[in-house]
């Protein structure tokens, strides 16, 4: 088991290094990172030169890559072009916000999605099953931003009509959020709708996958054996079928993490949340490559960690997986 984990860890490290190279070449090869700045008449040619020197922009890409990695490791991604505030200060602020949003959505959608999937599979072709199928097909076809906007319109109009504030549709917290439980309640009121938006999309994925996975397991020999032994239907499903059907869902949940971060880019933008997605879009508009590369690396690390956890969990859940 320990060697298995160590080997996965090593492989993750290799993937991480490859990912960093991919990110760097992709962004650097795309064009001159200072093209926007060159258009600015207030910035003199000398300043541009000095900046290019400082960031080693005149060197070939592999050399620049080495400098960039060095800066990323020793100086926490350094600073953007022409702004003297460290990138890490911004990232440090926004990462917890996005993590709260994404983790809440992941947990809730896994819980509800898997439950819907199990019930759909048990009651195959029932009204509930058809309703769940319709719901997930809608979920697959719906652009996240549209769902977010429709909910925003609905909540805003409810407030305008009845003046009842249950959920907020903009920002992370009220101007005066209070402390302790009040702060928590205020934050929950702000995050509820964004989390719901991310959940709808994810629940569609998880429930369909869980349903298919369970239907496959139900037809296996060992489930028939369990039934033949005279176990109650509930025990057969919960103990024997569901446990095995859950195993591939773990991998899916880890793979889906990237899509969730993509969804967070959109929801944070619409609900004005000061998170990573918002930060990403802002820097895309200002065309600053350094924060973008830092952002891509942070998400790559997060996704790799999630995949690592999934791999290890897979080993724990499925005793048939061999570790050598």
């Amino acid at each position, binding site marked *: 088991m320990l060697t298995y984990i160590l080997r996965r860890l090593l492989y993750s490290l290799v993937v991480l290094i490859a990912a960093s190279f991919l990110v760097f070449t992709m962004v650097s090869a795309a064009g001159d990172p200072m093209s926007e700045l060159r258009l600015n008449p207030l910035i003199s040619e000398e300043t541009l030169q000095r900046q290019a020197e400082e960031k080693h922009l005149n060197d070939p890409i592999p050399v620049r890559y080495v400098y960039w990695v060095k800066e990323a490791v020793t100086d926490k991604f350094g600073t953007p072009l022409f702004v003297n505030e460290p990138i890490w200060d911004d990232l440090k602020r926004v990462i917890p916000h996005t993590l709260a949003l994404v983790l809440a959505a992941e947990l809730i959608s896994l819980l509800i999605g898997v439950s819907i999937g199990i019930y759909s599979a048990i009651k195959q072709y029932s009204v509930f099953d058809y309703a769940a199928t319709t719901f997930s097909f809608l979920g697959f*076809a719906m652009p996240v*931003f549209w769902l977010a906007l429709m909910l925003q319109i609905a909540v805003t109009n409810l407030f305008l009509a009845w003046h009842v504030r249950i959920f907020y549709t903009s920002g992370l917290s009220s101007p005066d959020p209070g402390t302790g439980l009040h702060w928590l309640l205020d934050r929950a009121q702000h995050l509820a709708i964004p989390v719901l938006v991310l959940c709808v999309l994810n629940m569609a994925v998880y429930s369909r996958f869980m349903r298919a996975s369970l239907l496959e397991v139900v037809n296996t020999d060992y489930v028939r054996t369990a039934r033949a032994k005279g176990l109650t239907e509930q025990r057969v499903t919960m103990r024997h079928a569901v446990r095995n059907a859950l195993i591939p869902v773990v991998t899916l949940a880890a793979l889906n993490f990237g899509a969730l971060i993509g969804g967070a880019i959109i929801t944070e933008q619409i609900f004005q949340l000061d998170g990573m997605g918002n930060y990403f879009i802002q820097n895309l508009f200002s065309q600053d490559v350094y924060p973008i590369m830092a952002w891509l690396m942070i998400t790559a690390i997060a996704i790799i960690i999630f995949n690592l956890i999934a791999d290890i969990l897979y080993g724990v859940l499925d005793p048939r997986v061999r570790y050598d």
Partner: protein
Amino acid sequence: MTEQSLERDRTAFAGAAGANPAEVGASTDAALVHETGLEVEVRSQWTYARRRFMRHRLAVVSLVILIIIFTAGFTAPWIAPYSFEGYDINNLEVGPTLSGGHVFGTDLLGRDYFSRVLFGIRTSIHVAFIVTILAVAIGTAIGMVAGYYSRWADNLLMRFTDLILTLPALAVLLTAAAFLGHGSQYRVAVIVSLLLWTLLARIVRGQFLSLREKEYIDAAKAAGSGDLRIMFRHMLPNCMGPIVVFATLTLGGAILLESYLSYLGFGVQPPTPALGKLIADGQDVSSHDWWLVTFPGLTIVLIVLCINFVGDGLRDALDPTQRVRA
């Protein structure tokens, strides 16, 4: 004739003739019918596929709806009641009405949203079709090479797709769009397609890996066929099912991705209307002019929903072995 027996017959014929079973099955049937004088309707694999598809009612209905929407989109310049930029000063911010001529309402400038949505569909499916053609071409080519030659090409492909999975697709897409320049429909299409080919490459690779071991491939080799001929004449036609299904689903995915890009302002640039851009335009006044957000969005949902149903029907029709018991 059941699927299994048909499959057995096909391989039997193929073994005898040492050629591609898909075509031999049909032509030998025809020859047999001719010799024995039995009047049996000739049925190719495609006939069976079409029948299976027609049995999937939801897919057929979806296909009809799609054809209507796509035709409307393609002919937008001729059938749209207004131009996409035309201002109707007497009808600013009119809600959707059936009587007044503005079915989807108008925006702050009095532009007819029904016409704008029609032109938006035109842009979106234009991009989506280019994306699908490119993604299918790239994915098939790379999957074929990886599956046929295996070893290093295969390893490279698998590691590369692993690598792509470590980055959120939308973020990569946005970065590429922001730095490589956005604007023209073709650029947006190329960028999107570069991200979508990997799944098909893996599917085609898997098919090729198993097809490579079949006897009829050995027979073709023994008959002196070159690698290219074997790949294109004997193996590729046997992967058409999954490829067609994938192409359909990619079309839907491409429409969604394009709407994300244009919504965030990194897609096709104005004045060309795109569905995502229309929603972004309506967003600022969304609390009272709800129709500006609702209708373009519903259009996207309807299109993608229908495409997914058609894809589902095609999967049942073309790829019966892959069928999930649903």
